[in-house]
């Protein structure tokens, strides 16, 4: 009976040893050829070493994503008013070098101190209409002609400005108090 017990103990031990050896073989293969648990750990280790390798590069300011978002918002705001964002913005007395790509073609590239971001709105560029680029500044009389010069007041509101004076609603005296 002791022999039979020994068969059981040795047998179970051998099964454990064989599968444990196989486990280490698999882990070793993972290290050598990639994949597997250890391979994944190696991949993580490689990622960890990356910041050390890039130590020489200029430091990226904290909250760079927020800065990019602010930059994009500013560029969009200025474009709406027909202006372009300059190469620098200042936040909390700190100056950042920025560059914004084409707002209409996604993804929009935004660069803050050399850190590049790509933004899009549902896969599209920002809905900035070309109409808002119209310059509605006050021009001296007779220096501009044509429809957009006369369209100071949309026709849907019943009137527009022309060389001859107000037409439509105003001419009809509708806006008089």
């Amino acid at each position: 009976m002791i022999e039979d017990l020994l068969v059981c103990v040795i047998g179970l031990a051998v099964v454990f040893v064989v599968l444990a050896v196989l486990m280490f073989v698999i882990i070793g293969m993972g290290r050598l050829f990639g994949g597997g648990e250890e391979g994944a750990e190696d991949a993580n280790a490689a990622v960890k070493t990356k910041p050390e390798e890039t130590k020489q590069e200029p430091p990226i300011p904290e909250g760079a994503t927020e800065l990019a978002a602010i930059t994009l918002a500013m560029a969009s705001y200025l474009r709406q008013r027909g202006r372009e964002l300059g190469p620098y913005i200042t936040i909390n007395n700190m100056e950042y070098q920025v560059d914004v790509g084409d707002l209409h073609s996604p993804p929009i590239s935004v660069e803050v101190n050399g850190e590049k971001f790509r933004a899009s709105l549902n896969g599209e560029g920002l809905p900035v209409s070309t109409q808002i680029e119209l310059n509605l500044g006050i021009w001296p009389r007779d220096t501009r002609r044509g429809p957009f010069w006369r369209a100071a007041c949309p026709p849907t509101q019943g009137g527009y400005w022309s060389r001859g004076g107000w037409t439509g609603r105003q001419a009809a005296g509708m806006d008089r108090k």
Partner: protein
Amino acid sequence: MDVGGFGNIVAGFTDLADQPLMVVMLVIGAVLIYLGIAKKFEPLLLIPIGAGIMLANLPLAELIKPATEGEVGGFLWYFQKYTLSNELLPLLVFLGLGALTDFEPMLSHPRTILLGAAAQLGVFIAFLGTLALGLLPVFDFGPKEAASVGIIGGADGPTTIYVATSMIQQGGRDILGAVAVAAYSYMALVPIIQPPIIRLLTTKEERMIKMPYTFRPVSKRALIIFPIASTIVIALLVPKAAPLIGIMMFGNLLRVSGVVERLSKAAQNELMNIVIIFLGLSVGSTMTAKVFLQWETIAIFLLGLVAFAFSTAGGVMLGKLMCVLSHRQINPMIGAAGVSAVPMAARVVQAMASKEDPSNFLIMHAMGPNVAGVIGTATAAGVFLALIN
């Protein structure tokens, strides 16, 4: 008119009247066929085995009659002699299994391999149990029979047949039919046997532990080297397991190499199907009334159940230990998948996890121990073959 010729016509009835137990065997064969068809219990094996039993127990036993000088034997006798008794068929099934098995879940999460070892506990418990029963005068069990019965706990039909055949060749009793039917029956009953044991050994909180699955791709080079490396490693450690592991890993190499798809498909389908037909008929044909209708058969079925239960428990217990050591990162239920009923045991674990928490998915974690269990059972078989003479 030749009166002797008329006697030949009714000889079948005469033989049946002389051996009424043949009727019992015909009923058993019919029951197995019924279970395979109506209940879908391992139909690929139980239908050929049932048919083999019925063919072997037809009156006059013409189909299993051994060949003598100047007289041709029954065709089932040739099946037994040239395919089963030389262990050829179980090895060919292992070739197909290797071609069908995907080791990637195990290779991507190697720490679960040990669960496949723990789930061999039932093999050795049943071995001891069989020897203990052998002390009783009713049962004629020795170490060779105990090894054949114990290996049922691995839940691996071809390995069970391989060990039982080897033990018969070494002078053991012919219990091949009983252990094969017990193994395949309990493999079909895994969804009924395992859940109560798992529930008994785990708490609800443990069963609800989630294991997020991170897909870790395994390189093709690793997939190709694994079958070669594992064959060499196991052949060095347990040489007697080399035939089983070697042929299985060869089948797997056909699969993962990616350049012999025809051979891989042939091993998975055509060869496997042909071999299963021969294996089922051959195993069934060994089950004559004289061999099968013994008290030992009942004991084998009971011990097979014990083996399954302890194998499940062994896997779950190691799973619990790993759960504690990993700070509840491992759900102990996946240990139950260490029994090598692929993929049934893994599906049972998934079903239980889903029952506790529908958002819990353990199937991929369970597949690792599941395929490791196949290697574990083959190794246990090699140990028995090496230690028991």
